[in-house]
């Protein structure tokens, strides 16, 4: 096709698409939030054998700290492109000092509603994995200041990636089923490495949140899905299971699988959310130094309970408590296990619809093995005050 014909064809196609989308002016709705924290006291203790401390260039330390920070500022933009199509994105600013050192697009996608209960989604999407990732990640979605430590700090929330998804809701009498399937670029290796997924010794490599990049690092598409059920007689309750699988290395041969089961129950003002997490990574040379085996797995869970019927001078007051335990070790061999246990509790007060005041205590114990040297251990506890404002 000649250049002129291409221009004509593109013009006609563009106008036809605009006409199909509807020529009504598309207005953008901007909303957002801010999450502010004050930590009056945090206590950290690092311990271990001298050999294991030397591996991380650390010494036995016991420190106390206090300070304030703006944990995050977020702007959401949403617009209806047509009656059936909506675009949404979230820009998140973190590590805010003189500048915002981290600017993250948490999600940016188009929703196309084939029917009100059948939607296609494309772009950078929040993966429908578990319950917490999509419904409790943001501070205004929960009474606590922090999220479960393992999921937030090591798995890395929110889990979002570029690809497409489809969601269909079906009502079967009193029961409702939500089914999601998706295909995304998937987790890759750490940085530019070809054989390391996680590593205890490479800076920043213990968390796998950084393994999602802007493009696919191999020729394989990662697939996943989520199935969740609700019953009309049990409002604000849900049971579900999620699964993800994708090859993480550039050759597309080393498999990563994630699986989750979740249960949300509400009764008489009490709410309980539990999530079980399973991770299995194949042929990861990065964790041989910790687990003694290149295949490893994680099993763990968190449970959060809260009570939502209290009021203090007509202001909703929500006390809550959380416990989590995760264990990662070699799969099919090796020795040593990474262990994370944490418990936390606190309360949230809502003096206005757009404002939450929070207080939280967190106690964390984390152990990471180094083969033939022992475990490095972190004991941490602290008190945090928080303020979450939305607009």
């Amino acid at each position, binding site marked *: 096709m000649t250049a002129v*014909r291409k221009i*004509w*064809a593109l*013009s*006609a196609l563009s*106008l*036809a698409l*605009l*006409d199909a989308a*509807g*020529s*009504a*002016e*598309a*207005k*953008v*709705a*901007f*909303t*957002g*939030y801010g999450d502010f924290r004050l930590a009056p006291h945090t206590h950290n203790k690092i311990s271990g054998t001298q050999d294991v401390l030397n591996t991380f260039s650390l010494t036995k330390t016991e420190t106390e700290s206090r300070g304030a920070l703006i944990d995050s500022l*977020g702007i*959401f*933009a*949403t*617009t*209806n492109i047509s*009656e059936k199509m*909506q675009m*949404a994105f*979230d820009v998140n600013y973190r590590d805010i000092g003189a500048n915002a050192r981290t600017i993250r697009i948490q999600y940016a996608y188009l929703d196309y509603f084939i029917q009100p209960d059948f939607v296609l989604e494309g772009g950078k999407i929040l993966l429908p994995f578990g319950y917490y990732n999509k419904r409790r990640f*943001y501070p*205004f*979605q929960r009474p606590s200041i922090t999220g479960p430590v393992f999921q937030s700090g090591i798995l890395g929330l929110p889990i979002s990636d570029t690809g497409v998804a489809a969601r269909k809701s079906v009502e079967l009498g009193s029961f409702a089923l939500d089914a999601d399937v998706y295909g995304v670029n998937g987790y890759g290796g750490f940085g530019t490495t070809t054989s390391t997924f996680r590593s205890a010794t490479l800076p920043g490599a213990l968390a796998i949140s950084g393994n999602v990049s802007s493009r696919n690092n191999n020729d394989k598409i990662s697939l996943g899905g989520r199935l969740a059920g609700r019953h009309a007689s049990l409002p604000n309750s849900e049971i579900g299971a999620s699964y993800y699988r994708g090859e993480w290395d550039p050759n597309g041969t080393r498999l990563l699988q994630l699986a989750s089961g979740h249960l949300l129950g509400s009764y008489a003002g009490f709410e309980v959310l539990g999530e079980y997490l399973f991770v299995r990574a194949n042929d990861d040379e990065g964790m041989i130094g910790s687990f003694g085996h290149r295949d490893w797995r994680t099993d763990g869970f968190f449970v959060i309970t809260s009570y939502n019927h209290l009021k203090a001078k*007509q202001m909703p007051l929500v006390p809550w408590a959380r416990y989590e335990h995760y264990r990662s070790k070699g799969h099919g061999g090796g020795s040593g296990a990474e262990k994370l246990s944490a418990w936390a509790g606190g309360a949230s007060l*809502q003096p206005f*619809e*757009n404002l*939450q005041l929070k207080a939280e205590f967190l106690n964390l114990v984390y152990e990471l093995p180094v083969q033939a040297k022992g475990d490095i251990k972190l004991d941490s506890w602290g008190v945090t005050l928080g303020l979450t404002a*939305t*607009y």
Partner: protein
Amino acid sequence: MRALILGLILSASSAPARGAETRLTIVIEANDAMKASVLKNIGGGPVTVREFDRSLVSDPIAKGRLLAALQAGGMLVTVGDAATDFVLTELDDPSVFFAGGRLIAGHRLASPSVAGILGYNIDGMMDAVAKLWSGKVGLAFTPGYEGVAAWVRAAAKARGLSVIDKKVSSRREIPAAVSELVDQSRVIWIVGDPMLARGAGFQYLAERALSRDIPIVAASPWELRNGAFLSIETPSKALADQANAAIQALARGEKPSGPDLQQAPAGGMILLNGALVERWKVQPPANLQWRTP
């Protein structure tokens, strides 16, 4: 080929813009008891029903999605006080027909693109006032509420009560207006403008009035829980039927019958502040049906 493409371009640009078709979006609280009655037999043009939950105000993701959908154009019908308050507060100059709105800023009420049915019946409230007290009714209203003020004056006059009124155009004018009304009135009546019915304005009024044992008549139960003495319940079924008739007319592309601003149908239960009834030893007459909110 070029002629065909030119033809496509010309036909696309000359076709009626699909966005110009009048669409009706009904915003109604998810658990609204009136929902079924409001939505029955709605035919005509394209109608979308969007459920509204007050909790989404604190969820910017859900709020943004709803605002984006509502901003996409067309006529909005809001059912219930919370939905009406949300739409009129968050959208710029929307075309709204509200059913059951109680807390509405005066400048919104004055907008030519806003019409609807208030959530309270002034005659019913004035009946109760006349049974409980005699003397002057002190009326505080804001720009946009002139029509409501006229109803209050007419209702008072019909029951042998006199009215002194103060038009409050800004927050600065509230202290002087309140002082005058408290000095000269037996009971104070405020309209449902947030400037008077919420925040520092209402707090000041409530403190001054309560210090002089002057009861406040207000538009909604919220004021009752915060120091006002009397309000009225909305007769849900009758309002739902009235709203349904209006929605059916709008869906047909017609104007709802009646004036742009209407009172709620008669028959709502009077609401009284139980704590003040006890404190002031008020004895409502036997022919006054009431309850606490």
